[in-house]
C-alpha cells in the first residue's frame, strides 16, 4: 500500500480515507456479515485430510488496489508470457527447435514427468494448448513484478475472485460509487468465448468435466458451469463411440465438442493414462488425438509450468518472441547443476526451496522461517535427490492492509490473474485473485495452508 519511502500510493488514497473514517465496530460487523453471505452461498472448499469438512476460505474485507498504469504493465507481461508458453508447448510436441538450439537442456523437457509422449506430433484444435492460465505474481518494489509460478494445467480460484466482488459490492456500495473500479463479472462470458473458439466444429456443445463432489474445488466447477449455462459432467456421463465423444442424456446421446476439464492429465483416460482412474473417459485420448474434441487445457501443458522449466521462462520468451520479458522471473537455482547445489546448501537459511513437481505450498522449505532440524532435513533431501529441487531467494513481498484480530495490520499478498487464450486473442479480466498470508510475517498464501483472499481492484484509467 505504501511506497518504499513510506508515502501512500495514489491508488490507495480513497481507501485510506475510508479506513480511517470507519469505526472499528463497523468492520467487525461487516466481516461477520461477509462470512454469513459466503456460508449462505455455499462458497466452501474441502481440505484434503481433514475428513469431509467444508471450510470457508477466510475473506478479508479490505480490498487490494492496483493502479491503472501498473495493471497495464502486468497485463502486457502476462499476455507476453502466456503467448510464449503456448509457442513453447507447440514446439516441444513438434519440431523441438528450442531443444536443438540448446536453450533448454533436452532431458529437462523430454524426461520430465509432465511431458506427455501421447501429445507429441498432434496439434490441438486451433493450435492452442493453454486456454486458461493462472499466473501467480508478486510485487517487490514499485514497478517490480515477479512471476512466482505459471499454473498452466487446471488453475483454480477464479470463483473466489467473482464471489469476493459480489460480496464487496453488497457490503460497500458507496466505495464502488466513489472509486472507478474495473468490473470482473464478465469472466464467465470471456471463458465461454475462449472455450467455444477452441471447438473443432461449428455451434459446439461445451461441457465442464469435474472429478466430482469429493474434489476440493467442486464448488468452483459447479459455479462456473452454472454461470456459463453449461452442463457439469463427470467421467461416467461421457462415452466414446464412432470416433466422437458423447454425453448421455434422456433425449439421446449428444455429441460433445469442447471439454473444459478440471481433471489432471493422469486421470482423463483410463485406457491411455492411469488405468486405475475412475474419473476419466475410456478412449477420450484417441478422439482428442484425432482432433474431434478439444480439451481445455490441452494434454501435456504441465511440462511448461514445472518449477525447473520455470527457470528458463525468460529464455523461452526471448527465443519465440524476440522480446525482453516484461515481468521478471525470481532468480532460480537448479539443484541439478553442481554449482547451484553447492550455493544452495551453503545458504539454506536464506532461501526458499521447492520440489520441482510440488504444488499448493506443500513440500517446501522457507529458510528464514525454518527450524534447524527442518533445514537439516532438507539438506539431506537435496543431497539425495538434487534433481527434484529448486531454490530461490526470499523476496521482500509487498504487503496490504488486512483486518486481523488486533485491528488493521500489513500482511503479505500475491496475485493470481487468469489469462484466457483463443486463436483470435488473449483476454485478461482486470485484477485476479489476491491471496493473503494471514499469519504475521508469513509468505505462504495457499488456502490449504491457512491463507485468505481479498477483492482486487484495478482502478480505471479514464
Amino acid at each position, binding site marked *: 500500500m505504501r511506497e518504499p519511502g513510506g508515502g501512500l500510493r495514489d491508488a490507495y488514497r480513497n481507501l485510506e480515507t475510508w479506513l480511517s473514517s470507519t469505526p472499528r465496530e463497523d468492520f467487525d460487523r461487516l466481516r461477520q456479515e461477509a462470512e454469513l453471505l459466503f456460508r449462505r452461498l455455499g462458497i466452501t472448499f474441502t481440505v484434503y485430510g481433514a475428513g469431509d469438512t467444508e471450510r470457508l476460505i477466510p475473506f478479508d474485507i479490505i480490498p487490494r488496489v492496483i493502479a491503472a498504469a501498473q495493471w497495464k504493465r502486468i497485463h502486457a507481461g502476462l499476455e507476453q508470457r502466456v503467448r510464449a508458453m503456448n509457442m513453447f508447448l507447440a514446439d516441444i510436441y513438434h519440431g523441438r527447435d528450442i531443444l536443438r538450439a540448446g536453450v533448454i537442456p533436452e532431458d529437462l523437457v523430454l524426461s520430465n514427468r509432465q511431458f506427455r509422449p501421447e501429445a507429441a506430433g498432434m496439434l490441438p484444435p486451433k493450435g492452442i494448448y493453454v486456454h486458461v492460465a493462472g499466473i501467480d505474481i508478486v510485487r517487490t518494489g514499485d514497478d517490480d513484478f515477479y512471476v512466482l509460478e505459471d499454473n498452466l494445467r487446471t488453475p483454480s480460484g477464479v470463483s473466489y475472485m467473482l464471489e469476493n466482488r459480489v460480496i464487496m459490492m453488497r457490503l460497500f456500495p458507496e466505495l464502488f460509487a466513489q472509486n472507478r473500479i474495473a468490473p470482473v463479472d464478465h469472466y464467465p462470458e470471456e471463458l465461454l468465448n475462449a472455450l467455444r473458439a477452441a471447438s473443432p466444429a461449428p455451434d459446439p456443445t461445451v461441457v465442464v468435466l469435474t472429478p466430482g*463432489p469429493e474434489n476440493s474445488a467442486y464448488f468452483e466447477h*459447479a459455479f462456473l458451469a*452454472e454461470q456459463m449455462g453449461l*452442463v*457439469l*459432467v*463427470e467421467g*461416467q*456421463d461421457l462415452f466414446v463411440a464412432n470416433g466422437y465423444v458423447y*454425453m*448421455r*442424456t*434422456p*433425449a*439421446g*446421446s449428444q455429441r460433445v465438442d469442447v471439454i473444459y476439464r478440471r481433471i489432471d492429465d493422469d486421470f482423463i483416460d483410463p485406457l491411455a493414462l492411469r488405468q486405475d482412474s475412475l474419473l476419466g473417459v475410456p478412449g477420450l485420448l484417441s478422439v482428442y488425438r484425432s482432433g474431434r474434441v478439444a480439451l481445455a487445457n490441452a494434454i501435456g501443458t504441465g511440462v511448461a509450468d514445472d518449477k525447473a522449466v520455470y527457470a528458463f521462462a525468460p529464455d523461452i520468451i526471448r527465443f519465440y518472441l524476440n522480446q525482453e520479458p516484461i515481468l521478471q522471473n525470481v532468480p532460480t537455482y537448479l539443484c541439478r547443476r553442481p554449482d547451484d547445489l553447492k550455493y544452495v546448501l551453503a545458504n539454506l537459511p536464506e532461501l526458499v526451496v521447492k520440489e520441482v513437481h510440488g504444488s499448493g505450498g506443500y513440500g517446501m522449505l522457507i529458510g528464514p522461517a525454518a527450524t534447524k532440524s527442518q533445514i537439516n532435513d532438507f539438506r539431506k533431501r537435496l543431497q539425495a535427490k538434487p534433481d527434484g529441487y529448486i531454490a530461490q531467494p526470499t523476496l521482500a513481498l509487498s504487503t496490504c492492509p488486512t483486518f486481523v484480530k488486533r485491528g488493521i495490520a500489513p500482511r503479505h499478498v500475491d496475485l493470481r490473474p487468469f489469462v484466457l487464450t483463443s486463436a483470435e486473442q488473449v483476454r485478461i479480466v482486470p485484477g485476479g485473485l489476491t491471496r493473503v498470508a494471514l499469519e504475521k510475517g508469513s509468505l505462504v498464501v495457499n488456502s490449504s495452508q491457512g491463507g485468505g483472499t481479498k477483492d482486487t481492484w484495478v482502478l480505471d484509467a479514464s
Partner: protein
Amino acid sequence: MLSRTADNLYWLGRYIERAENIARMLDVAHRSALISRKDVAAADWGSVLGITGIAEAFFQRFSVTDDRSIISFMAFDHNNWSSISACVRRARENGRALRGSITSEMWESLNETWLMLQGKKYEDVSANGFSQFFDWVKERSHLFRGVTFGTMLRDDCYHFLRLGTFLERADNTARLLDVKYHLLHPADAVGGVVDYYQWAALLRSVSALRAYKQLYHEAIVPRRVAELLILREDMPRSLRASYREIDALFVELGQRYHREYECFRIAGDMYRRLRYGRMEDIFAVGLHPFLTEFISRTSRLGEQIVDDFQLAA
C-alpha cells in the same frame, strides 16, 4: 439434462413414495392386528413381509412376526434396503447429488426428514403409538411432494421425479392388494365382522375409506374395493390413476424430446387396459393372476425406462 441427473430424480421420486407406502402397509398391519386373535395378529404383521418380498432376510434375524420385530426391521433397520429409514437415506443421497437441479426448499425438506429419522428406534415410536409415527412419515412425504409442486420448475427434471413417484405407487398399490386378494375375491368373502374391519383397514391404508363411502353409499363389498383401487381414475392411489399420470408424463417427454420410446408404448398399452377394463373380466381371470401380471409388467416398464433414457451409466 444428463441421464445421471434424470436417474437421480427418478429414484428420488421412487424412494420417497416407497417410504410412504411402507408406512401405509405397516399401518394396515397394525390396525388389522389390533382386532385379530393372537395367532392371526402374527399373520397380520407377517403380511408386510409378503408385500416387500424380503421374508428370508427377516427370518434370518427374527423368529416371530410381531410389532417389535416387524417395525424394527421395516422402519429403522439400515441394513434392510426396504426399510423406511433406508429409503429416506437413499432419497437424500439422490437429492444431494441434485443440489443444482432441485430447489433449496426441496433439499431442506428432504434433509430434515433424514435428520429427524436419525437414531430413531422401536422404543421411540411404541411410546407414542405407532400410528403417530406412520402419520409422520406420510406427512413428510406429502410435504416433499407439496414443496416440489409449489417450487419446482416444470421442466424435464420435474417429469422424471414424478415418473418415479407414479411408477412406484402403481407397484406398491398392486402389491398391497395382492397380499389381501383372498379377502377381495367375491366367492371367498363371507362378510363377517372381522372381514369388514380388514377391508376398512385396507381402504384406510390408502386413504380411500371416505372415498369409498362417498362413491358407493353402501357397506363395504369386496368387488367395489377392488374396483376402487384398480379401475377408478378419480382415486389418486389406484392403478389406473397411477398409469394415467405415467402416460401423461410420457406425452410431455415425447413432445420435449421429439422422440418415441418403447416405454411410451408399454405404458400407453397398460393405461388403456385399465381405462377400458371391466371388473368382471378381471375376476374371470382371477384377481391374483391379474395382479401378478400387473406387477411384472410394471417392473418391465421400469427396466425399459432405464434403457430408453440411458439412466444406468
